[in-house]
């Protein structure tokens, strides 16, 4: 699964995109799995209320299932316009 990071999430994790081998069933499971890996993930995901997530380029909830997902993206609230 491709995992993408944007804005300060990208800066904390240090890469814009990586491929992750995972059996996580939901977004939240994936977040917990990443947090256990390294401090930089822990720093990025410490407060998930400050984050948004998109699965296959659609905004969704952290409780969303990851079955068949090809691409998950994490980022702060958007500030376009």
């Amino acid at each position: 699964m491709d995992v993408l990071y944007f804005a300060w999430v990208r800066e904390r994790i240090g890469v814009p995109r990586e491929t992750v081998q995972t059996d996580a069933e939901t977004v939240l499971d994936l977040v917990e799995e990443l947090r256990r890996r390294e401090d930089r993930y822990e720093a990025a995901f410490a407060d998930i209320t400050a984050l948004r997530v998109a699965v296959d380029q659609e905004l969704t909830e952290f409780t969303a299932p990851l079955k068949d997902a090809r691409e998950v993206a994490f980022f702060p609230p958007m500030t376009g316009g």
Partner: protein
Amino acid sequence: MDVRVQEAPFDFGVEANAFAAAQSGMGAVVTFTGIVRDLPDAPLCHMMIEHYPGMTEKALHGIATKAHDRWSLGGSLIIHRFGRLAPDEMIMMVATASRHRKDAFEAAMYLMDYLKSRAPFWKREETAQGSAWVAARDEDEAALIDWSEPHA
């Protein structure tokens, strides 16, 4: 429905005229344009706008489609830039055309409110003192709740 996500500058006046000229039988055209503002404390060197290629275009098309479903529109246009922008440069514009001004105004406000909090753009402001990501504002999120409630 015309959506453009681009690094290059655009000419607001030229786009506004072309949009208005392309309309047929529409008496009302509303535009909004967002401009890079200088900062109150330290002079802004430039603004960097990051986006999510692929999702951005999808999200903007989705927002425009909802506006066309909700109001009677002859046409709509969204242009949004990414990359490095200098103070006073134009960041983005929307335009809407309708037979009546109320529809054109409401649809333009709706496009802006949704674009602001639902399209994957992030702004970083760079000054001589360093750089900082622009924080989302609670009132921008609150604006979306207003649209989901029935209006008088």
